């Protein structure tokens, strides 16, 4: 069993490296592998150097970390809520971020302002959802899920209204909400990579506790797990990671929902293995999605959210049907 798991991890790691190399090499301008190697050895042409170091590398790193972050958060939220439909956006992060971004676009605040506003309003939204679903010191996950849906619907209505009143910005807003890494710079790397890494690691420390919570919150408490603390901590850090991811790459759907499921089908429900595995798969998934977004209709770029949903949806259905057949055979 252990050997099988380390085999899966090794395979996933090689796929990650392979996708990264592919993603650096392919794009609007094709850079053959030999030339990529030359650039990293310091022998490449100036133009290749610029393309790789100031465009493709930061973009690759950010998409990998965002993919990892969203998948890790999705894995934890599905576990905490014991709900397979849960994803990083359930607490209203996505609509909150879209709200901030819409305001920033209408006010023409620039790229930095946009990221900041998206982040800020995502955090505020989650905090609001959390506060209204708290009773005493306990948090009911079901109430929280419903409150998240209600608040999201309300905010979406306001966003639609703002778009209607600012017709000239319509396409920019839509484009942002569908996600993309076209504007990523090294500054995004410096902010998002460490925070997503540290956040994911802290959550990972609570894998065993979340395992116990999967068998019931009350039951976990009787095993010596401080469920309320674990829930609050993971909700807080998970939302922070999600808000940060959204502020960099827009609302990229499906990653945080399906990658955890795919990972679970392969490696099983134990969060101590599932979380890192899901993180690696998430990184691979977004690296490849970003690659497709760049090359499919080149030189035009497709918003990455379209790719993740268009490829992720059918693939997920395939897995669902397959696992259904498998359990019927049993």
């Amino acid at each position, binding site marked *: 069993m252990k050997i099988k798991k380390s085999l899966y991890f090794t395979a996933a790691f090689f796929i990650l490296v392979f996708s990264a190399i592919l993603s650096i090499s392919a794009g609007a301008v094709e850079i053959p592998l030999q030339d990529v190697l030359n650039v990293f050895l310091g022998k490449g042409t100036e133009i290749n150097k610029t393309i790789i170091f100031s465009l493709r590398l930061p973009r690759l790193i950010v998409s990998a970390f965002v993919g990892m972050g969203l998948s890790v958060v999705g894995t934890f939220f599905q576990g905490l809520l014991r709900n397979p439909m849960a994803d990083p956006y359930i607490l209203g992060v996505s609509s909150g971020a879209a709200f901030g971004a819409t305001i920033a676009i209408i006010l023409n605040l620039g790229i930095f302002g946009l990221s900041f506003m998206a982040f800020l309003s995502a955090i505020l939204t989650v905090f609001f959802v959390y506060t209204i679903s708290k009773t005493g010191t306990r948090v009911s996950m079901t109430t929280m899920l419903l409150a998240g849906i209600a608040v999201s619907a309300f905010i979406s209505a306001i966003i639609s209204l703002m778009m209607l009143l600012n017709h000239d910005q319509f396409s920019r807003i839509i484009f942002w909400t569908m996600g993309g890494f076209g504007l990523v710079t090294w500054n995004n790397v410096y902010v998002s990579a460490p925070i997503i890494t540290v956040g994911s690691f802290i959550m990972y420390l609570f894998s065993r506790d979340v395992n*116990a919570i999967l068998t019931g919150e009350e039951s976990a*408490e009787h095993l010596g*797990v401080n469920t309320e603390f674990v829930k609050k901590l993971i909700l807080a850090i998970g939302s922070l990671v999600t808000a940060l991811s959204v502020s960099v790459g827009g609302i990229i759907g499906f990653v945080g929902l399906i990658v955890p499921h795919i990972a679970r089908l392969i490696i099983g429900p134990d969060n101590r293995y599932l979380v890192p595995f899901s993180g690696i798969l998430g990184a691979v998934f977004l690296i490849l999605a970003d690659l497709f977004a760049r090359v499919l209709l080149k030189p035009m770029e497709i918003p990455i959210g379209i790719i993740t949903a268009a490829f992720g949806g059918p693939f997920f259905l395939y897995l669902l049907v397959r696992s259904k057949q498998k359990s019927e055979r049993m």
Partner: protein
Amino acid sequence: MDILKVENLSFSYGKKEIIKGIDFNISESMVLGIIGPNGSGKTTLLKNLSGYLKPSFGNVYVLNKNIKHLNIKEKAKYIGYVPQDIFYDFDFTCYDIVMMGRTPYLNRFQSEKLEDKQIVRESMEITNTWQFKDKSIKELSGGERQRVYIARALAQRPKIMLMDEPVSHLDIKYQLEILNLIKDLTLKGILVITVLHDINLAAQFCDKIFILKDGKIEASGKPKDVLNVKNIKNVFETDVVIFEDSETGSINIVPYLNRREQLKVV
């Protein structure tokens, strides 16, 4: 030394008082059955004993330690709990589930030691679940699943094991199997406190019985002493006839409907 001592325990949900001043102490391992009508506070009492719910008044002592002052991990080393509703909508193997019982003994950075593995194996052998170790919990029957969860509580190495209707969803065969297992646990020095629905099974398997009514202990003692026509009529508002059963050495309680009395009312 008392294994469990309960002093003037009261508990309210909001304004509604569910448990109203319960006192008792137990100094030896045994099976203690709690019976009583729906809404009499059985589950609430159990959750107060486990420390999951905080009493509004009174104290619970386990081996002379007030559980109020124990942290959540320490509590889990003294008290195991087998819940009424067991979730099993995931693919954990039975071994993984039982290993969760070692959670209170492991800190965040630690992986399971040889000792933990030995205890898990032992717990699974006692409950006759070792053969399921690599099976998913989903694939088991209700009775087998119950045994796995008892094994998990056992892996906590508790002094007290609390069970909330451990046999109510099971077939007769599994009911007897689980109750037999529970009886065996007392030989290991564990005090088992269990809520039971079936009065006859309670009479047969418990060493001592509490009859709960409106959050108070209405009667307590050996099954044969407390399970009499008068007490049952008083608490369950039901007429019964009670037979001594020479075959099992226990008593047999049969409820009956007094049709004639009912007809008069109509």
